[in-house]
């Protein structure tokens, strides 16, 4: 019977390849980490589900005419989704802690060292047969060290769309692993005495300063680094919506409706890039390894810069807060707080760590701009 044959031929069982099966298991793993371990669930759950959907044989959900194809095409290929997420992040972020202590920007800068070290690392990996990363590929991989999901997706969509799936998964995975990866490095590089430093309370910040801050950042971005303007611009636009106090409707829309809707679609679309032929390659292993290295180097650089600032300030800065410079808001700041409490039960570093933490977001965007300016042209 013809129909029965068509039905059998359409079955997943009859068409499944090992690669697809493996990628679906990867999707399940991501969902498991998101649900059971609460690893960045807002992103890893949709990414994992997108990976499953796009690897279903014969369904073609990620191929031309399928749902995930359209979402990817409209939202990621154009770079629109990560920028909208950045607008929402800006509307959700209170930069007060950074404004109260601008010097924490140095911590946010130092933590980007992981990015550039990884860039060299990726190019070095080319010496091993089987790896063949272009400069653009290497830059997109390096940004994982920035520990900032939307920035990584934006840069990858511009410089290395083929590697986008692996890069996004690596970026969000390592962001989720902050509580596991960072503490040993922080303890290794600091002395008990340093970890015990109690920081003075942050000065109050006026509303006017909070309104002027996004304009200041944007002005410098315009003057010196226009290639970072899409990222920095949307981040600061969201922050302006938040701080001016006359457009609460729009601020709420950016903080809720837009970022929630876009997060669902962004996750599914990123997941749709986890196809067997693109992901199950030696390169992915390289990307995952490089990402881990980038992350560790970034953390170490942040802490070391914290030690420098501690010296210069005459012991007023607790070097631990340097680790928060990698971004991964607000997880990294919480980890700093926790490690600080281990040494001194009354030393709450959360607010002081928020400064380098949000500085890290700006730092990653700046680094992305530099990479785009040098590599992307």
């Amino acid at each position, binding site marked *: 019977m013809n129909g029965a044959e068509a039905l059998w031929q359409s079955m997943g069982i009859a068409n499944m390849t090992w690669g697809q099966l493996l990628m679906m298991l990867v999707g399940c793993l991501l969902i498991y980490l998101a649900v059971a371990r609460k690893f960045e669930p807002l992103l890893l759950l949709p990414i994992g589900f997108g990976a499953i959907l796009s690897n279903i044989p014969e369904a073609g959900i990620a191929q031309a005419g399928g749902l995930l194809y359209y979402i990817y095409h409209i939202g990621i290929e154009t770079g629109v989704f990560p920028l909208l997420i950045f607008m929402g992040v800006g509307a959700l972020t209170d930069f*007060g*802690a950074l*404004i*109260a202590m*601008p*010097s924490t*920007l*140095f911590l*946010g*800068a130092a933590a*980007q*060292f992981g*990015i*550039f*070290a990884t*860039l*060299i690392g990726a190019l070095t990996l080319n010496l091993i047969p089987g790896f063949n990363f272009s400069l653009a590929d290497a830059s997109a991989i390096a940004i994982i060290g920035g520990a900032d999901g939307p920035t990584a997706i934006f840069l990858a969509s511009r410089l290395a769309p083929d590697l986008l799936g692996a890069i996004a998964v690596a970026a969000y995975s390592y962001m989720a692993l902050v509580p596991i990866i960072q503490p040993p490095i922080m303890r290794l590089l600091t002395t008990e005495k340093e970890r015990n430093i109690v920081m003075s*309370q*942050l*000065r*109050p*910040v*006026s*509303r*006017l*300063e909070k309104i*002027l*801050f996004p304009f*200041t*950042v944007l*002005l*410098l971005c315009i003057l*010196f*680094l226009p290639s970072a303007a899409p990222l920095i611009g949307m981040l600061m636009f969201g922050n302006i919506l938040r701080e001016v106090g006359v457009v609460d409707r729009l601020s709420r829309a950016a903080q809720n409706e837009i970022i929630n809707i876009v997060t669902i679609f962004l996750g599914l679309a990123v997941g749709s890039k986890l196809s067997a032929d693109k992901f199950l390659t030696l390169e992915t292993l390289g990307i995952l390894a490089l990402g881990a290295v980038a992350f560790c180097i970034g953390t170490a650089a942040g802490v070391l810069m914290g030690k420098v600032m501690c010296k210069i300030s005459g012991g007023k800065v607790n070097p631990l807060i340097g680790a928060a410079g990698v971004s991964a808001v607000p997880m990294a700041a919480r980890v700093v707080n926790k490690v600080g409490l281990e040494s001194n039960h009354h030393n709450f570093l959360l*607010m002081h760590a928020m400064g380098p933490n949000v*500085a890290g977001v*700006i*730092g990653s965007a*700046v*680094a992305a701009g*530099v*990479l785009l300016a*040098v590599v992307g042209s």
Partner: protein
Amino acid sequence: MLLGMGSVFLFLTVLVLAMNGVSRLAAPYADDGARGYPRHQPASATAGNESEEIVAVISAAISRYRNRS
């Protein structure tokens, strides 16, 4: 790498300088009593007001009662 890190540091150094400048310029105009960190509002504020109100109502009721008796 040097170029990249250098650019990032340069940019953020300029930003630190600019922020310090802006803060100094903005200081005289700060109108709203400078919101500090962290600023938690007592969670029981409303409850407090309410119970104050209740106490007031009760006092009134009691004094009325007193006058009557």
